């Protein structure tokens, strides 16, 4: 009689996945950037034409700050 061998069923324990939570570093805007942002918001209301004229330059300046 042939001996049937059964493969042992090895239950695999679920591997605990190591979840690495990347720490989100919150950076605050510099005072100069805050001042410029406030100025831009004011200019949008006071003088939309002047804001439109300088929109691209403001973006460059904000990226540098």
């Amino acid at each position, binding site marked *: 009689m042939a001996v049937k061998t059964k493969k042992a069923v090895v239950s695999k324990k679920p591997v605990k996945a190591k979840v690495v939570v990347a720490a989100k570093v919150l950076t605050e805007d510099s005072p100069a950037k805050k001042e410029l942002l406030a*100025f831009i918001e*004011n*200019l949008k209301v*006071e*003088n939309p*034409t*002047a804001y439109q*004229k*300088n929109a691209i*330059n403001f973006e460059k300046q904000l990226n540098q700050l």
Partner: protein
Amino acid sequence: MATLQQILRNSLVAEKICEVDRTDNMTIKNPYGSACTTQITSLTGTYQVDDFSVTADTLTVTDEFKNAEHVYDFQELLSYYDLFANRIEQQSYDIAASIDQYVLNFILTDGTGTYTTPTGGFTTAANINVILANLLSKTVGYSDTYKGLFLVLENTDITGLVQAQMTNGYSFADAALNNGLLTHQAGIDIYVVRTGTFVTETIGTKSVVGSGHRVFGVKGVCTYAAPRGIQMEEKSVSAKTGKECVTWGYIGCKVWAQKAALIVDITIA
């Protein structure tokens, strides 16, 4: 009595490039009508009657510039110098300089003409002819240009400008080599102010975007109103010897709507 040494003063430009009104008016109304549409047809003898509109454009005096100090009697009496005269004169200059800065930044913020210089701006001599040619193209062809053209730069720009003047042409270059900065080039009157004049901030009630900018345009198409110019008062005050000296001025400025294209806001690349 001897006078104190004067502090270093900037040259004032606004009065040379703008119309100045010193009457007692709070507002100056300057409305404009709409453009006409000329009908061009074959010989018909008939035409359409069009509508037209009038739009208000007003200069309003909105800002006040003031300066006040107190000279005690013992200070005036026991000093070898005329302190009172010095403070009044100093205050008057300071207000005039502040008004000048206000007007320059105001007109460049509200001018609708724009131009960005090649990289290096006016400090690169090779850029000068390119910049001047491009600026001229912004205003030439308009009938107002007979009034004269102006360009206001900061002193740091002069390094490139003077080098360009010294190496362009023959008699022009000789004149620059002999005399330094030539204040008329390519039909444009060149004015120089000190670095830091063009700013991006709120001056009084006006937000201006002038830092990294210069201004070019036609003279006399902007107006600033300074009712009664700069006024001063000396007054006795309670509980103090001597006199309080106060100097003040009122300002309104306007780039007239129909002329805004004649003021070019130059951005230094």
